[in-house]
């Protein structure tokens, strides 16, 4: 671990009725790094992301943001902390242009009237900061953009708000080879710009191409969170599908010990979430 994590989840539990979807999950995201979140279908990736983004509330466990325990009860709480999610199905309005989409729901106004010039300038600056060179005009409708360009707009929308954590849900799932490369380059650049990036992906090539750390979920448990340089392709696949690989992953009984070597929350002691006044919780 080169730096303290910006966002840290400790012992997260989440159940839907009798079904426990997340079991004692630890997860940490560091600023300036891409953390890949991988796992098979139904492993709990989406649920974990929805807990972080405030769509679901957690049953127990602790979320620490920038060294302080926080409660995230609604998407607004998450947005206030600077956590933005780029959803798989993009959530863009085809009939609006790029600027309008980027500011949707958070329009800049002067008085009652929309402040279009300011919004357009901010959008241009954000896209320039991400070195996006592929869009012709900021005033073209999103419907006329390619899949990669749409993804770019969706990501730029998330970055616009001085966000600190950007979670990307399968950003390359629907893209061709060239566009995938484009988006991955953008993902890398977000991290290089100092953001903490969470990349959810099924594509191991993408994961190994851009990530600094890989967190692996298996049936609702975090089997390991490792530096990308310390694992091989085969190990990751094994951890995702079987929950363990050699000395890594879950130990024999699958209740405790849900951490491999190098995980962040190694010696977890369940801090009650009421201790909100303590600034830096020890690790």
């Amino acid at each position, binding site marked *: 671990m080169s730096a303290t994590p910006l966002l840290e989840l400790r012992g997260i539990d989440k159940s839907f009725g009798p079904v426990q979807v997340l079991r004692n999950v630890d997860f940490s995201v560091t600023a300036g*790094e891409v953390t890949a979140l991988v796992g098979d279908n139904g492993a709990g990736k989406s649920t974990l992301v929805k807990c972080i983004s405030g769509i679901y509330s957690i049953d127990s466990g602790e979320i620490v943001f920038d060294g302080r325990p926080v409660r995230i009860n609604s998407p607004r709480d998450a947005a206030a902390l600077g956590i933005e999610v780029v959803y798989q199905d*993009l959530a863009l309005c*085809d*009939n609006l242009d790029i600027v309008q989409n980027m500011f*949707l*729901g958070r329009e800049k106004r002067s008085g009652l009237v929309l402040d279009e010039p300011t919004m357009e*300038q901010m959008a241009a600056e954000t896209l320039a900061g991400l070195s996006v060179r592929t869009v012709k005009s900021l005033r073209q409708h999103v*419907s006329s953009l390619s899949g990669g360009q749409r993804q770019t707009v969706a990501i730029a929308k998330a970055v616009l708000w001085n966000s600190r954590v950007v979670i990307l849900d399968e950003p390359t799932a629907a893209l061709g080879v060239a566009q995938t490369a484009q988006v991955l380059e953008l993902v890398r650049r977000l991290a290089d710009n100092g953001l903490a990036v969470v990349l959810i992906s099924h594509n191991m090539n993408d994961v190994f191409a851009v990530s600094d750390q890989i967190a692996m979920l298996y049936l609702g448990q975090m089997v390991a969170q490792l530096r990308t340089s310390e694992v091989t392709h085969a190990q990751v696949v094994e951890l995702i599908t079987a929950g363990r690989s050699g000395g890594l992953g879950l130990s024999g009984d699958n209740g405790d010990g849900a951490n491999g070597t190098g995980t962040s929350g190694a010696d977890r002691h369940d801090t009650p979430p009421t201790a909100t006044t303590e600034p830096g919780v020890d690790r």
Partner: protein
Amino acid sequence: MTAPTTTAARPLDVPAAPVPTVGSHVRDYLARVRGGDMGALPAVLGLIVLCAIFSVLHDSFLTQGNFANLFTQGAAVTVIAMGLVFVLLLGEIDLSAGFASGVCAAVLAQLVTLRGFPWYVAVLAAIATGALIGFVLGFLVAKVGIPSFVVTLAAFLAFQGVVLLLIKGGTNVSVHDEVIRAIEIRNMPPWLGWAMAVVGIAGYAAVQLLRHRNRTARGLVTEPLAVVWFRIGVLAVLVGTAVHILNLERSHNPLVSLRGVPIVVPIIVLLLVLWTFVLNRTAYGRHIYAVGGNREAARRAGINVDRIRISVFVICSSMAAVGGIIAASRGGSVDANTGGSNVLLYAVGAAVIGGTSLFGGKGRVFDAVLGGAVIAVIDNGMALMNVSSGVKYVFTGLVLLAAASVDAVSRRRATATGNR
């Protein structure tokens, strides 16, 4: 490691888009039209063709008297269509708008004629009735989750009954109030028409030029100044011509003078400016387009979708109330047929003919005015030629069908070219 290592080295190309010229602007427009984004073009062409046909077929179509008639005949439908644009923008429909206007007109007649309230109380009550109707409809659609087609179809039947109940069955209630009657049957003095025209054109020019200057000063891509001036010029010519013709003497009786812009015209212009401002320049309007374009995306962007859906029905029914007031002003009475027969279909037709999509997400308030003009020309021209009601209905139906086909075809074409 958090330093932005790569950005500094890369070129910042986004703001350096090519500066548009008049030529590129025209080319862009033609490309958009070919790509299926035809905007007002079909309606404008249709209007010109229809006017040409009717003026050939009947001498009195192109007279100043008939020109004024077009405005007063089309006013109610146009105003109702303006409200419908909001509902159509969400991909919903309000089939009850016609009879909602009837109900509101009946409320107006009740208060002003039978109970002797002053006109402004009656007008406010009528509009409030419309707002209430719209709230109930919107609530049933957004919160209860009944499809708008069904809710408003039920309301269509029910309001027909409410009109009958309000005017105590069968008979009609006359509206004699001077102010209310004046909306449709009185004209402004010629000088006032000119003054309003000048103020309107100057206001439009000021807004357009200021926006252009503001954008240029900020280094944003702007359309060429020539295009801005061209638009201002076109507006000035059209408005000037219309005011000039309306200010001509159109009375056949030498003892009575009949000239000037009908009072209903500035009312329509005012509503057009108001609602265009709301749709284009406020966050609320932006959210209406967003909900119409992609409801889920709007919800995730933190927009209160239910509130937007309810509000458009409130706007629609309130505008229907205004339409009802205009209809009562024109007819001088309210009967069981006020807002009935073809009013609703004409209004929906006006919005769609003008270019508002039935699929949601695309449309402007101006579409209602443009489409309302087409409808008024058809209605008026047919009446002049003394064709039977049968022919008139068939022809209007065909025009509506043609407009809906243009909408569907251009939409398909737009999807193919990624233009929408």
